[in-house]
């Protein structure tokens, strides 16, 4: 396998399903390939990691296409992005929540699903983790 020097970090901001799916796909694939994977949830996406997660939301402009897409995802038996994120975590990916946004929303570590969230960290910690690797803002 790789020497472990490959690294991908994601800042996941959007909380809509269409953007969360690729987070799961990329995280799982990168973790399987032996990349170091760091995912930093902030903004609206953060609320998807709660013990009582926010309900699925799709962007208004694509609303008409959603039923067909969901049908297609079911047909190919695509796992949910949460399942893919869990797969990624089982292969070493780390998931963090932005401390600033968590504070702003009045959320504590205890409010987040411990099977998903490794820790609440500040952006400085994230930037240090991400240093030298690829970074995606989603």
């Amino acid at each position, binding site marked *: 396998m790789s020497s472990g020097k490959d690294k991908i970090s994601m800042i996941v901001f959007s909380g809509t399903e269409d953007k969360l799916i690729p987070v799961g*796909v990329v995280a799982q694939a990168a973790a399987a*390939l032996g990349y170091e994977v760091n995912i930093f949830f902030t903004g609206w996406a953060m609320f998807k990691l709660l013990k009582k997660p926010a309900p699925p939301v799709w962007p208004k402009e694509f609303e008409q296409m959603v039923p067909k897409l969901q049908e297609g995802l079911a047909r190919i038996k695509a796992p949910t992005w949460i399942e893919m994120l869990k797969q990624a975590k089982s292969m070493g990916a780390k998931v963090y929540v932005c401390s600033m946004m968590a504070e702003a929303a009045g959320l504590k570590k205890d409010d987040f699903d411990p099977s998903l969230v490794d820790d609440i960290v500040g952006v400085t910690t994230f930037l240090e983790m991400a240093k030298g690797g690829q970074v995606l803002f989603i």
Partner: protein
Amino acid sequence: MSQGNKILVDARGIACPGPITELVKAYRNARNGDIIEVWATDPGFEPDVKAWIQRTGNQLLELRKEPDKIVAVIKVTAKK
């Protein structure tokens, strides 16, 4: 040298990136000399397995398209 094991990974019906994930899981427990045969139906598997081979330096013995599946036969050579 002893004969390697043959490992079959049936990833048919699993969407990308499932087949590569299943291959990697099998690879983790494999040893040099083992043969891993992967069956997949996701069309992305064909280029993806080539990319995986390039990345890991294992040997792709065969990659063929059958009417109902893609078959990749890999010889494990790059385990440290």
